[in-house]
């Protein structure tokens, strides 16, 4: 059953987990054959911004070797045939220019969300 993953909580332990846990489980389920789409809303629209870099975390002698690569994780979802959408109003409210987004992400106006949601028989809101 086609399922929409709405990701709203952003940067939740992403440095510790080296990814976003909802994107991770989306990848894992897609690998198992699940039909999925992703809608970024709220603070999670920031995941679509290309060029973000959170490398360099260090505590004492401990250095992070594999920082999260959220844009790459989104791009690889697209490459696996997962539709990725983002709420345009949430981008505008945060001053994020659409030109700064990674390619392939579809923008949807908040006023059109109901129409988009109608396409999905199952919706999980994270």
């Amino acid at each position, binding site marked *: 059953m086609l399922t929409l993953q709405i990701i709203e909580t952003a940067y939740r*332990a*992403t440095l*510790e987990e080296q990814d976003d846990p909802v994107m991770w489980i989306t990848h894992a389920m897609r*690998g198992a054959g699940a039909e999925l789409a992703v809608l970024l809303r709220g603070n999670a629209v920031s995941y679509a911004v290309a060029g973000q870099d959170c490398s360099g*975390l260090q505590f004492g*002698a*401990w250095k992070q070797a*594999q920082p999260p690569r959220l844009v790459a994780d989104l791009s690889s979802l697209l490459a696996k045939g997962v539709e990725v959408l983002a709420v345009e109003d949430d981008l505008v409210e945060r001053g994020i220019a659409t030109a700064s987004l990674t390619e392939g992400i579809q923008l949807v106006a908040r006023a059109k969300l109901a129409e988009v949601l109608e396409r999905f028989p199952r919706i999980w809101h994270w």
Partner: protein
Amino acid sequence: MTKPQPLTFVLMDAPFESDRTTTAFRLLEAALEQGHDVNVFAYEGAVALSFARQARHPNAVHGRNEADEAHPLAREWIAALLQKAETKSLKVDWVNCGLCVDERGVAETISGVRRGGPPDFWAMAERAANTLVIATR
């Protein structure tokens, strides 16, 4: 030069649940870098930060084996801060709330972490220049 006064921090979030944890560790690192002794009272879920059985794992989604994934573990972050303090002749007093530990079954901690309770937190706050509470939201 006068040594900076100790700083006390209260942490409350469990590992792998919030980026507040990473921010808290960055503040601890900065405090040590500035020459402060540091007191940490780990409360509620934060007592699991020092749990000795935290383990790395491979990550098939990332396409990396256990070694290449190099998954962060909070117990290693604590150990790194303890080591940094030692090399700078500073002190990190890391105290876990004992009742919180018992509830969660995470009594097996890395060395350098001790068991305590609210009176320890109060004493830490009393001897510190300031106390920062980083609470669960």
